[in-house]
């Protein structure tokens, strides 16, 4: 992720990746090929989530983004997997 005054703690990154995967911004790691989620994908997923949530699209897990991730919400994903892939 681009440099930020307060780089997110590892726990926040784990929370962020889990959250982004769960709500459709980040495709889950592929168990068959073992392909992991790349840094670039993560940045794009964060940007997509920020745009969708009405935040400033910084591409990093800043405080406002983490706070929104903790906001109570509906369980359904925000992006259909195909849409997410098209966005990327």
């Amino acid at each position, binding site marked *: 992720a681009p440099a930020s005054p307060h780089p997110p*703690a*590892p*726990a*926040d990154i*784990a*929370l962020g990746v889990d959250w982004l995967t769960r*709500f*459709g911004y980040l495709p889950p790691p592929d168990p068959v090929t073992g392909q992991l989620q790349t840094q670039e994908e993560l940045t794009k997923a964060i940007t997509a989530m920020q*745009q*969708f*949530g*009405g935040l400033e699209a910084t591409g990093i897990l800043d405080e406002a983004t*983490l*706070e*929104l991730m*903790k*906001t*109570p*919400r*509906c*369980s*359904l*994903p*925000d992006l*259909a*997997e*195909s*849409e997410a892939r098209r966005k990327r």
Partner: protein
Amino acid sequence: YAQAVTKWNKRNLSWRVRTFPKESQLGHDTVRALMYYALKVWSDITPLNFHEVAGNNADIQIDFSKADHNDGYPFDGPGGTVAHAFFPGDHHTAGDTHFDDDEYWTFRSSDAHGMDLFAVAVHEFGHAIGLTHISAIESIMRPYYQGPVGDPLKYDLPYEDKVRIWQLYGVRESVSPTAKPEVTRADDHPILPELPENHSSIPLRRDMPNRCNTHFDAVAQIRGEAFFFKGKYFWRLTRNKHLVSLQPAQIHRFWRGLPLNLDSVDAVYERTNDHKIVFFKGDRYWVFKDNNVEEGYPRPISDFGLPPGGIDAAFSWAHNDKTYFFKDNLYWRYDDHERRMDPSYPSETTLWKGIPSPLDDAMRWSDGATYFFRGKEYWKVLDSDMEAEPGYPQSIARDWLVCSDMQSDSPEAAGSSRTGARSRQGQHDESRSENGYEVCSCTS
């Protein structure tokens, strides 16, 4: 989920509330009435008609469920995900709508921590008839809970949402400018009860502790949030010290794998090297990855080099990344990286000036300080100090758990528990009445 945009081919849809919230003050009739009005929001402007039925074959089956409820989409306790619904389709779950029964469901309540059932129901029924999430701030289909949306009898869908549902089903005849107004009689609609304005107290379950008037078994910072454990329950505060819910959650529902007969815990801390969470009770401990216990636990605390008898408190100290265990008037220093106890321990807790013993627990916090808890009070130690700050102890209930002084015993009453060189008996609490003014706090 069938995410592709789908819609119902039929216009008459049945619904039924199969299970109700167990710990909400909303009666069954109120819940059914709210569901009726939430569906009516959509049927008023589309050709869809909803009718309530009995039995298990309703198109829209409504349930209040907790945690894992066998649809592959477990809920997660208070906060987090609060509800979901299945899109229209041929599968038997199509249209079904689930609400998280760990949420505190409210109606016309000023309780900032409650979840307005009508607002969430309108959103979920939007999914049940085919709408997906959108990012428009004012849309009811935005994925984040945005608080109550006002009176169900006066609620008007945002235009954005009307356009999208009209694209799926067209406009209801009665809405079109040329149609004659539909005649409905008042008693066609269920009556929504008026909640008394002053209804603010939340009925507590019999065994539920009162956060404003209790001491805590354990306190820990986990993933940046504060957890206060008491008996079989816990309260959770976000990083900004916001209480997630006035209602405590049940330990066993969240921390999966603790024995069901465990009636309390002694101490909890998050390991800094791998962010696993360690629970202590008596001579045993459990290690959790996220909120699931790992295989092979419980194990004896002798793994840490601790003597039998259990511990009072555990915390990892930010300034040296060591873990500290307290028991009565002794404390140990443990290296979680090396997985061994540091030599020349235990030492006397008197080295921690102004900190009482025995403790209930201790916790590091995001401000870099360490907090020590005992009874209804807490002490603060800055950075790498080993001495309590002046002006402590302070009231846990007031400073952490959104309790006014009226709701919690005032620290003066607890004067007998003050220890340490700096706090004087009967000292009036400066922070409360600087310059002679009383500071009042509004909790509801």
